[in-house]
């Protein structure tokens, strides 16, 4: 357990040792603000809700999360430090989880830094704070899901850019296959059961539940498996690299 934390600490320090982390935080905050106020028209709605804030997260994360996670393993591969890391007396799982946690914590920090908007909405009106908390939890899981996929794609290649593109594509699929404009089209072409099967892969139904204030156990299980499976795939890819 201690070794997981050692890895996480090193990785987190890595983020903050470079200006990229601060640039990222600023971009994230600017983007969420822009989407919320300009496109989501938070002010004009005259409603005490953070709906226009959270509804954009699946789209904003689509680029920002792969940007945070793309270096996780590809950089280790490129620099050759993977050989150093994996000959230290720790298990591969500890390394994978430690690294994953570091970037998840970093994204969580970014999410926590959006708290002024929560204060604002409470100052201006009387929102349902339990819905907001559920939405934050949903957003937290969503970041974890995207990140886990990025961990997998970054183990796949030593090139960060390829890792970024691959994970954007996979995450985009997870969004689109449950996004109403797309599923409506699919529904006209395929039988209902096919549509339901495809939608089951999507992050969207789960996120909608969280954004409506429901913490559904099925949604939680969905996100935990979307986090768990790619991490498992990461370990298989890395084992394959060494052989």
């Amino acid at each position: 357990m201690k070794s997981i934390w050692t890895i996480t600490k090193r990785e987190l320090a890595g983020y903050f040792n470079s200006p990229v982390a601060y640039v990222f935080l600023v971009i994230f905050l600017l983007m969420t603000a822009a989407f919320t106020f300009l496109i989501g028209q938070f002010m004009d709605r005259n409603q005490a809700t953070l709906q226009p804030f959270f509804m954009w997260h699946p789209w904003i994360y689509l680029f920002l999360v792969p940007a945070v996670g793309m270096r996780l393993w590809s950089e280790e591969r490129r620099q050759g430090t993977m050989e150093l890391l994996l000959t230290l007396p720790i298990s591969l799982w500890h390394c994978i989880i430690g690294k994953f946690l570091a970037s998840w914590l970093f994204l969580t920090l970014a999410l926590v830094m959006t708290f002024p908007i929560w204060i604002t909405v409470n100052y201006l009106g009387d929102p349902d704070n339990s819905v907001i908390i559920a939405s934050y939890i949903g957003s937290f899981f969503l970041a974890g899901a995207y990140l886990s996929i990025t961990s997998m794609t970054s183990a796949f290649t030593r090139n960060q850019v390829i890792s970024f593109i691959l994970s954007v594509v996979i995450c985009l699929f997870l969004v689109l296959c449950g996004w109403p404009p797309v599923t409506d089209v699919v529904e006209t072409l395929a039988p209902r059961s096919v549509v339901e099967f495809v939608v089951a892969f999507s992050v969207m139904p789960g996120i909608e539940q969280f954004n409506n204030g429901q913490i559904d156990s099925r949604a939680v299980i969905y996100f935990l498996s979307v986090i768990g499976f790619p991490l498992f795939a990461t370990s298989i890819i890395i084992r394959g690299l060494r052989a």
Partner: protein
Amino acid sequence: MIKVENLSKSFGPKVAVNDVSFTLERGEILGFLGPNGAGKSTTMRMITGYTPPTAGVIRVGGNDVTEKPIEAKRLMGYLPESAPLYTDMTVEGFLGFCAEVRGINGADKAKAIDRAIEMCFLKSVRHQSVDTLSKGFRHRTGFAQAIIHDPDILVMDEPTDGLDPNQKHEVRSLIRRMGQSKAIIFSTHILEEVEAACTRAIIIDQGKIVANGTPDELKAKSELADSYVVSISGIEASAVRDKLGSVIQAAKVTIVNDKAPTVVARVFPKKAGTDGELGQAIFAAAAQHNWKINEIKKEEGRLDDVFRNITLSDTKTQ
């Protein structure tokens, strides 16, 4: 401390390491020699648990590396080829990380860092970021990482690569000093290093061990071993060849250099390992013919000769 049995590794159809067996005990310093692509790094990666072997067993301090990797890795320090480091850390931060992963914390950690920094002469770059270090300092940082936990076993892939001559010398003496209480295996392309630091050397070629012995034993395999080089003034080369060639103990005489008035000849013995007999015979012949001898030297044999002879096969086939 290390026991390697019938170790093999294939990458697809390519056999990188082919049925290698050897053991290494505490107090031994084993030099690993071989041409490029011989399989040195691959063997070390298997010993340190990075690459799983295709066949064979490796025991490190009694632990099977495949079955108990963590226990085995705890006993070892490893300097990978070209010393990879986390470039976004300072030297001190990096060493601290390696110590922590190995379970060294608090005051022990500070002590371990100080010790490693002192042993590897890193004081001047202690707070410098790794990515601004020169190659030699990077290598030394990698070395420091390998000894941070004062391991019983050290595995180093080309530890003196990229160091200046002074540092090469320092690292060699460091290896020699540590070798008294540890088991050390390191690979190198510098043959003097083997003579300077190793108690034993293994030469590996195309994945197979082709020689295993003390540096002296290996040198004795040289064709030049126990031959004499004689430098004589004021005589014809042909006369030297005739007269020395008729000495009973001599198998062959070659003229190394013939620049009047000095002739330098090499006399090969019929039987290697006969102490001084050929030398005495050469002196006797010189006295008999009244030669002016400038110099006479017995050759111990050269490692590079042996190395070239046993590993030439692959350059020939290419």
